[in-house]
Structures are given as C-alpha cells and as structure tokens.
C-alpha cells in the first residue's frame, strides 16, 4: 500500500461530521495515510497532530458543508505527502499569539513546527489548510 493507494485516498479522502467527537477519526486517517506512504512512527504522529489542529480550527472557526461535514484529503508528489483539511467557512484569521502565557493562538505555530510547509487557502465560503511533509 504505497503511492497508488494513497492516490486513491486522495480521490476518496475522509469526510466527517464537524464535531469534536470526530477528531480521533481524523487523527487515525492522517496517521494511517502517513504510515502507508512510508513515514516512520514519529513523523506519523507529527502529521496526525497537525491534522488534528487543522480539523479543530475547522470545527471551532469554520463551517461545514451542506451535509454538516468537513473533509480531509491526501495527495502525494514524489516524496512529499500533503494532507488537506477543508471547511466551508471563510477564514477570518488572527495572527499566532507568541506569548507563552496565551490560552489561544498556538494551533498554527504548532502545525508549522510539525510539518515542512503549511499553506492556508482562503476563498469565499471555503478554507483549506494544506499540511506537507517530505519523507527523509
């Protein structure tokens, strides 16, 4: 189960209700997809954590589709795996809070530290966070 299967997952992806009870399923999907792509356990943990943060943001600040769902998809490009979290809200962003004593604002900072690249694509009624990591 390597690139071909991961590619199939890119077409199917994971759709899940925009509810906190679904975060475990999002983490499992990210971990299994990363493992199938050939990442070691540590890198799988990092991607699962990053996806968890992006899905949490989508649940807290975004909006689900007409079926009440958000999506997580995987795409590959050479040695790079990208996990994308999409909701149907329009991200109104706030800068990361750099204070160690802040209660909020750590999500994007952590995503950036646990992946190679974070891209935030904002459209009208659509926000997608792309989280990329390359195999060593």
């Amino acid at each position, binding site marked *: 189960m390597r690139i071909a299967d991961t590619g199939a997952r890119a077409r199917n992806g994971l759709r899940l209700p925009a509810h*906190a009870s679904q975060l475990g399923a999002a983490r499992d999907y990210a971990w299994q997809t990363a493992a199938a792509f050939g990442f070691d356990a540590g890198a799988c943990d990092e991607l699962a954590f990053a996806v968890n943060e992006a899905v949490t943001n989508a649940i807290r600040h975004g909006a689900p589709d007409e079926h009440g769902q958000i999506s997580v998809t995987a795409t590959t490009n050479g040695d790079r795996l990208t996990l994308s979290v999409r909701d149907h809200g329009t991200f109104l962003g706030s800068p990361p809070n750099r204070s160690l004593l802040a209660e909020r604002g750590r999500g994007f900072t952590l995503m950036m530290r646990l992946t190679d690249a974070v891209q935030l694509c904002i459209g009208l009624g659509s926000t997608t966070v792309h989280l990329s990591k390359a195999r060593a």
Partner: protein
Amino acid sequence: MGFFYIMDDMENDGLGCGEDVAVLTAGGDIDYGATPQLRERIVEHIAAGKRRLVLDLTKVTFIDSTAIGVLVGALVRLQGVGGGSLVVVCVEDNDKVMRIFEIAGVDNVIAVHRTREEALSALAVAG
C-alpha cells in the same frame, strides 16, 4: 471517539503538603472534545479553594493546543490568587506529551516533574 478520563487522586490529596493541594490524574486523548472536562475539573478545584494543583499526564496518549491553553490558563489564574501554582507529572519517555510541551514552549512555563512525589515535594517547598 477518543478515550479520555480525568479523576481526583484521593490517595495523594494533600499528602502533608497542605489542604490547598489537589492531585488530578488524566489519561487517554486530551483533544478539543475532552478539554471542557479538563477545564471543568480544574475550575471546580480552584472554586473549592485548591491553590496548588498537580496534574499527572503520565497516561495521556495525545494532547493538543486547546488542552495546553487550559493548563496555561489555569496556571495564570492560580498565580493570580495568592501565589498558587500548577505543575505537571509526566514520564520522560511519554513523547506524545513531552514533545508537544517542548515544541509549544510550555515546558518553560509549567514545571514538569517525573514523579508525583517529586511534584508534591516541589509544591511543599513552594508552599
């Protein structure tokens, strides 16, 4: 749905450190679905007069930024009410917790002890 629990450790409660000390044990995944319970338990203890909290995260298998926010918020609140404190217990090889603490820089703000005894001793000295 992820598994999460949090409970009071009556056995260690107080343990010669004073009546304002409480020991809580959490386990499983602390994500956005679990942080309301974490926050609620901490707030209950503060409302009951506890000022020095020990939170044992040794059995935690996942922790996210919302949980870290709750811990930091509790620490700030406790420090604001007469020198209170919140410390964490976690074994060094629990990468799932320690790595995130390190990356988030939380280990510079919240003291992490390897055992409950060590944490309670540190609180006794502080108290």
